[in-house]
């Protein structure tokens, strides 16, 4: 095994490597002239007020948890989507085509799964957890 992942490894290496190389080049090769205008966060914007490192409002947290739960749901959808063709066929697929008629089992199984999560969405919605005020 492994050969499939060489490309992925190369892509990751190239991505990380470019970032490292360019940062290093800028630091060691480039010329530096420090002026006040370059030291402030927004060269062309208004002067910042206060520290950017403040505590985040806790409202973000439920949103993040909700994201996570639906993220997991999506992870469960992938294997279903990949198999949708064979799951909605009453018999085994023959050369990628279905000869045995339609089976609603694959769709129904997922519809039930999604229905429970729709309950969750409706609940979250009605409780105004995804609103802002």
């Amino acid at each position: 095994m492994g050969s499939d992942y060489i490309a992925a490894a190369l892509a990751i290496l190239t991505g990380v490597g470019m970032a490292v190389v360019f940062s290093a080049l800028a630091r060691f090769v480039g010329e530096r002239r420090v002026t006040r205008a370059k030291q402030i966060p927004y060269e062309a914007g208004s002067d910042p007020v206060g520290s950017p490192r403040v505590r985040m409002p806790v409202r973000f947290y439920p949103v993040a948890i909700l994201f996570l739960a639906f993220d997991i749901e999506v992870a469960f959808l992938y294997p279903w989507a990949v198999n949708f063709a064979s799951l909605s066929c009453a018999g085994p697929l023959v050369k990628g085509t279905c000869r045995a008629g339609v089976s609603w089992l694959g769709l129904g199984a997922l519809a039930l799964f999604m229905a429970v999560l729709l309950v969750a969405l409706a609940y979250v919605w009605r409780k105004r957890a995804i609103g802002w005020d």
Partner: protein
Amino acid sequence: MPTNLVVFYLFALAAVVGAAGVPMSKNIFWSAMGLLSALVGVAGLYVLLSADFLAVTQLLVYIGGVLVLIIFAVMLTSQIKEIEVSNQNVGLVSGAILFALTGTLLCFVAIWAPWKVVLLQSHETTTDIGNGLLGAWLLPFEVTSVVLLATLIGAIVVARKEIKED
């Protein structure tokens, strides 16, 4: 040493060092970073074991979700720069005893066990997992949605006061 083995040890090192960093680091933010390293390392190990779907899920859910949530929690509870020493209770003695015991046990079992060596054939696992989830494991799959529902309720119930004062 074959390339596979080198890569394996690299990922394993990332996982172990990261995992050790989580409880040992005094700064909670570095603990989160240790967790990142551990999770990435494990994802790499999944790839090496041809568990491609698992590796992607690991990236999607753990690194893209859980870790972000943890860093969020750090940012919500303290100012990111001056994080106080939040991990004072290291419990060195009891931890060391527990570690020595379980470590010895696990190493002993790992050496003693008759491992079966199988040549891995890399193939796409997503299809198999999908067939399993919607075939033989249909029932646990459906119950999983109730687990997720309960999780969502929990997020709302526990965070309620912050959302709506009523």
